C-alpha cells in the first residue's frame, strides 16, 4: 500500500482519447469556466454598486446567475444596468456551460447504477433531449425577464 499514494503520469499520447475522456476534461474545464463567469458577475455587481446596496448572500445569488430578477428584492435603486443585453449574454453563456456540466454529471451518476448497454443508451438519449429543452427554456427565461 505504500506505493498507492505515488502519482502515476501517463503521457497524453498513450491515453485513450474517446468521448468519455473528452467529457471528463470538459467537466473540469467547464468548472473553471463557471468560476470565471461567476467571479466576473460578482465583480460586475460590485462595480454597479452592490457593495453598499446588497448583502453577501444576494451578491452570491446574482453571481450564480446574473439575471435581473435575482436583484429585484434587494435595495438596488435602479434595475436598468442589471438587465442590459451584456448581462443577458453572460447569463446565457453561464446557462450553456452549467447545463452541459450538470446533465453530464447526471449521466455519470446514472452510469453508476445502470449497467446494461441498452439502459445507458436510453439515459444518453433522454439526457440529450433534456439538455436541449432546458437550454431553450432557460435562454427564453433570461431574454424575456
Amino acid at each position: 500500500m505504500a506505493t498507492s499514494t505515488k502519482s502515476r503520469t501517463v503521457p497524453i499520447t498513450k491515453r485513450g482519447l474517446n468521448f468519455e475522456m473528452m467529457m471528463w476534461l470538459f467537466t473540469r474545464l467547464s468548472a473553471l469556466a463557471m468560476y470565471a463567469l461567476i467571479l466576473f458577475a460578482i465583480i460586475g455587481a460590485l462595480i454597479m454598486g452592490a457593495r453598499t446596496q446588497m448583502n453577501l448572500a444576494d451578491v452570491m445569488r446574482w453571481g450564480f446567475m446574473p439575471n435581473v430578477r435575482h436583484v429585484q428584492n434587494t435595495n438596488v435603486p435602479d434595475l436598468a444596468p442589471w438587465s442590459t443585453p451584456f448581462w443577458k449574454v453572460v447569463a446565457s453563456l453561464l446557462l450553456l456551460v452549467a447545463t452541459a456540466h450538470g446533465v453530464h454529471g447526471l449521466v455519470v451518476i446514472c452510469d453508476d447504477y445502470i449497467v446494461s448497454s441498452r439502459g445507458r443508451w436510453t439515459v444518453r438519449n433522454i439526457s440529450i433531449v433534456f439538455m436541449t429543452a432546458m437550454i431553450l427554456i432557460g435562454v427564453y427565461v433570461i431574454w424575456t425577464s
Partner: protein
Amino acid sequence: MGLKRNVSLATALRYKGQGPMLTFVLHRIGGLGMAIFITIHILSSFAGGKVGIYTNSIYENWIFQIFIFFFVLFHAINGLRITIVDLFPKLIENQREAIWIEWAVFIPVYGMAVFVIIRTGLGG
C-alpha cells in the same frame, strides 16, 4: 442485467472512507440536488403565475437557502479542488491536505453566508 453489489448495505455504510469519501458523497448529493433545484427553478420561472410564486416562496425561505447554499458552495469549492488536483496529477499525493484546505475555505465562506441569511431571515 441489474446491479450486483459485493458488499451488503450495512457493510457499505460502515466503510471507513473518511474525508475523501465524505467529499465524494456530499459532491454527489449536492450535484443531484442542484440539478433538481435548478430544473424546477427554470421551469417555474418559465411558467410564472401561481406556480412561479409558490416555488419562489419556497426558494426564498431562509431555511431552504441555508440548505441550498451548503450544497452549492460545497459543490463549487470541492469541484475546484478536484479540478486543480486532476489537472496537476502530481498533487494527488497531497490530496488529504487539499481536503483540509478545502474545509478551511468552505467553512468561513459558508459561515458568513449563513450569518447573513439568518440575519435577513429574522428581519434584521
